[in-house]
């Protein structure tokens, strides 16, 4: 078997953007510092040099204006914009354009509109960036009908899912955890796509299912590795796409193991973790051998001090304890 080279999560995203921009002139990249600067996370590096300032477009700090511009450009069918919103925390200033405009136009216009746009944004704590630059607000998007929501955890998934997202004719919110950009993994050089709505079993197991998102997938895998030494077999399911949701893979895993721990960095109430718990309760209750455990941060803003922030982020220890409790 050929050895696949390893690249970072950020490089994998860059390859997806480069491929799509090379393939389709309608694909344009817009956002703050995405041009010469290459994006503050380096995801758009080199694209400005290759495709020029018309297609790699630096914007003023005017999120509502440029996200709305992307919505309008997509609605005309003239462009397929990929917008970078530096932090998901900033979505409040543009939320109308996302949840009232992009998400609703097709339905309200009787199916006559297509909004082929991707809003790339970042989530995640762990950098002492405090409460306005550290949130994982994916639940706000999952909540609103008309948006597709993607949240990859590996470089391989990042590339394949971003290609699918850009080629999709609906508005896709593509959420990248800041802690994953430097993570390396095997990624084929050639382009490939991963269908939206297909979960991935990141590790097979038979005793407990962990459903985890983004950075929490890696923590869960660590825990699974550790517990395997004790003979506990943990299955880790990464939904990858939160809307649409691959309920079949999740439910099949719960039915197989009979135990469920959900790990998510979103806030605890009305969040993705509670969503999966409700799914299990309503569709797999008879298979459950123990109550579902939910591991999320507490319902507080993200604290600044590393001492507090470490406490805030779900730890491997909490995940491990939860697994032990349901066993």
């Amino acid at each position, binding site marked *: 078997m050929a050895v696949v080279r390893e690249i970072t999560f950020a490089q994998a995203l860059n390859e997806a953007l480069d491929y799509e921009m090379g393939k389709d002139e309608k694909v344009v990249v817009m956002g703050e510092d995405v041009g010469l600067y290459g994006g503050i996370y380096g995801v758009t590096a080199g694209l400005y040099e290759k495709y020029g300032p018309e297609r790699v477009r630096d914007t003023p700090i005017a999120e509502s204006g440029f996200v709305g511009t992307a919505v*309008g450009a997509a*609605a005309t069918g*003239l462009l397929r914009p990929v917008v970078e919103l530096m932090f998901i925390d900033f979505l409040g200033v543009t939320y109308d354009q996302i949840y009232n405009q992009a998400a609703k136009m097709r339905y*309200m216009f009787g199916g006559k509109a297509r909004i082929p746009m991707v809003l790339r944004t970042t989530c995640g704590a762990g950098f002492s960036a405090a409460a306005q630059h550290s949130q994982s607000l994916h639940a706000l998007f999952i909540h609103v009908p008309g948006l597709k929501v993607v949240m990859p955890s590996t470089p391989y998934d990042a590339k394949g899912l971003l290609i699918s997202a850009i080629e999709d004719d609906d508005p896709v919110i593509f959420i990248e955890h800041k802690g994953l950009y430097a993570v390396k993994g095997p990624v084929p050089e050639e382009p490939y796509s991963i*269908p939206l709505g297909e979960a991935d079993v990141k590790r097979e197991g038979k005793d407990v299912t962990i459903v985890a998102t983004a950075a929490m997938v890696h923590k869960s895998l660590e825990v699974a590795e550790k517990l395997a030494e004790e003979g506990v077999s943990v299955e880790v399911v990464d939904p990858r796409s939160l809307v649409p949701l691959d*309920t079949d893979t999740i439910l099949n895993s719960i039915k197989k193991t009979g135990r469920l721990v959900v790990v998510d960095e979103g806030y605890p109430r009305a969040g993705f973790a509670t969503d999966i718990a409700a799914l299990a309760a309503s569709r797999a209750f008879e298979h459950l051998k123990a109550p579902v455990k939910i591991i999320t941060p507490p319902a507080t803003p993200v604290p600044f001090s590393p001492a507090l922030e470490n406490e805030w982020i779900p730890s491997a220890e909490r995940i491990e304890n939860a697994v032990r409790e349901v066993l």
Partner: protein
Amino acid sequence: MPVEEIPRETLLWMYETMVRIRVHEERVAELFAQGKVPGFVHLYVGEEAVAVGVMANLRREDFITSTHRGHGHYIAKGGDVKASMAELFGKKTGSGKGKGGSMHIADLDVGELGANGMVGGGIPHAVGAGLGIKLNGLDNVAVAFFGDGASNQQNFHEGINLAAIWKLPVVFVCENNQYQISLSYDKQQTIKSVAERAKAYGIPGVSVDGQDVLAVYEVAKEAIERARRGEGPTLIEAKTYRFRGHFEGDPQVYRSKEEVEWWKKNKDPIKLFEEKLLAKGIATREELDAIWEKARKEIEEAVKFAEESPWPSKEELLEDVFSTPTKGVLVWQW
């Protein structure tokens, strides 16, 4: 603009379109009062000269974005009136299959990117259309319609700034009807004219009498031609007045009956235009009457179509959320 400089065909199109909008809106007011049109309805009576004066300069391929008060823009841009009437009724045959209603009427086939329930929400969409036009090397334009209230909103400032720095073919048309629901213009901002704001973005700004369709036509023509030439955006403020309340059923405690009557008597855009057409011998009374007759017939046919159309089926509730077939589950019942 002197009528002599405008082709007769264009002048008659403008008159006819203003009349069609007027007849449409007054008929919708009756239908709303009869309980046949659900929801909120914001009528364009009194403001017809703005949509028509601008749209007389647009092509089918040009784009517009509209407001709460969008019926006039829709009709003037060439939207299908039967489809919009059915939409107002919430019928299956509506332009949005009964899912959008008055505040969201759209006709993408004629470049009408939609009325908008959010004040200012559509302004950046016109900027996006302008960006698409520019990057595709086309010579079309996009026009954003919005009200005086929206001119205080972030989408106005951010959208107009983006269009200015990127020199996009976008024309911003503020319909200053002097009330943001109940708040009068002088209580919303300290400047005399919204057009003054153009200075802040380094683009031309012009204020025009929105009740004079020829005046609107002239400034719009200049702005649109400028945009087509690649010289960037213009901000137009058309000073106008809504003859009816903000929405149907508005008790209008914020303005006097005398004020409304004064505008109806002295500043009705259709009457003013009619006087000019007759005085200059462009059209006879009989020809103008025939236009009214034709418009009434057209609107009655649209009403009949809407009334006779079926309601959407229950299955349609779940349709048109997304356009692409997707794996996984979009909607599940707990």
